[in-house]
């Protein structure tokens, strides 16, 4: 039975039916189909929430291994990881039935540890962009030179100091952003959208063998 359920044709059939109904619901106003598609979407959202548990189990496997083997340099971080999962979870248990959990021990680490850490990490992006620009923006060819000059003009146009240097910089910047880059951006968007549709079709008919042979290995 389990080998029958793992047959690729079953996955392809499900993908095909869901794809067909979703497309139909997008184009045609048939309330029954739209309701069904909404149900599919809600179902998928719920699955992705449960997948966080799967993610936790996957991460736990690695961290338990680290702790058991005392992997040098990382095992104590694995303990921190488990504690930071366990303590808020236990603290939130009494409020599990409520629509939102507001226990400080649950919200405080999120608001005042996780969020500032994320913000700090994001703030480092500027430094990385700086060193990447220093390394990459070199006039190695005609195309690279055009990119370099355009990039510098846009940067100057983005900052008021550009206007102080030359009052035509904002005009050039506007032209580059509104006229120069828009056709390229549109072309990229259109071709990426076509790429998605074709990729979806290949998955649906089983031509995308690397993912549609899912489960074919048995076991």
């Amino acid at each position, binding site marked *: 039975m389990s080998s029958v359920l793992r047959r690729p044709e079953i996955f392809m059939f499900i993908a095909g039916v869901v794809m067909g109904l979703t497309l139909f619901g997008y184009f045609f106003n048939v309330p029954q189909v739209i309701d069904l598609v909404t149900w599919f979407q809600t179902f998928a959202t719920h*699955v992705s929430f449960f997948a966080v548990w799967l993610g936790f189990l996957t991460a736990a496997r690695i961290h338990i291994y680290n702790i058991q083997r005392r992997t040098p340099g990382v095992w104590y971080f694995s303990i921190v990881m488990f504690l930071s999962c366990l303590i808020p979870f236990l603290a939130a248990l009494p409020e599990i039935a409520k629509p939102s959990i507001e226990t400080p021990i649950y919200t405080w680490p999120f608001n005042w540890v996780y969020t500032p850490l994320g913000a700090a990490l994001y703030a480092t992006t500027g430094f990385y962009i700086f060193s990447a620009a220093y390394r990459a*923006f070199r006039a190695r060819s005609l195309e690279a030179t055009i990119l370099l000059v355009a990039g510098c003009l846009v940067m100057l146009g983005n900052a008021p100091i550009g206007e102080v240097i030359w009052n035509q910089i904002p005009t050039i910047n506007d032209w580059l952003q509104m006229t120069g880059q828009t056709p390229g951006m549109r072309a990229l968007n259109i071709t990426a959208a076509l790429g998605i549709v074709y990729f979806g079709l290949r998955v649906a008919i089983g031509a995308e063998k690397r993912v549609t042979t899912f489960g074919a290995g048995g076991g």
Partner: protein
Amino acid sequence: MNTLYLEQILFAGRGSSLVVLILLVVFFFIGLRLAKMGRPPKMRRLPAMDAIDEAIGRAAEMGKPALYTPGITGSLASEQGPQMVASITILSYVAEGCARYDVPLIVDFAQGDAIPLMDETLRLAYLKQGKPEKYDPKMLNYFPGQSPMVTGILGHLQRLRPAAFFMIGGLYYESVVIGEAANFVGAMTIGGTANTHQLPFIIAVCDYVLIGEEIYAASAYLSKDPYQIATIAGEDWIKFVLMALLLLGFILEPLGIKYISSFLRW
């Protein structure tokens, strides 16, 4: 369900999209038919895909691992989901290469619902190379969110010093951070995304780049299978149709002939 009824229930403004979609499907099957008749179309080179083997070979020579991240795409059911699936197809090829040359592979990601697909894809890739025992589920490192994933990747880059780094999929601000960090540790970097806002950064920090739609065509390109390549031909034909529409609109609209704009608004 007759045609008139379909027209009545069609949402306003989506008719032209439906026509384009139907054309896409028709071209897709014409491409398949041509392939079956032994006339597959030619496909241009994708240097980034050709560089995958070079990067894995480099890792094998240096005795260092390869690091792969499909980025962050919310969930498989989201509008970014196809990028994740496309990335997993490329991961499958990378894993086969790593299995062939015994290069340790680490996969860092932040999407829980992709774990079964990744797990099975990697297992099959190692099985295909006759080394199922080499596959260890601990290759998959899940991080619960964007910033944890970035931190995890930075940690792996610093500690393991991989020789090859792949970031292909739904990438956001992390692309410049991890790409530059990979460059700092001397890894050969191959990037790719359909997120247009990140392309300039990826181009700046990576050695090779898959631009936009190329990540969706990668699997067919890697397989060299005429049947798969044929499915991409239709994509080019529809581009010609769209270009013709643009050109017609460009000529007719100034003359006051509004057929094209009416069709697009239908």
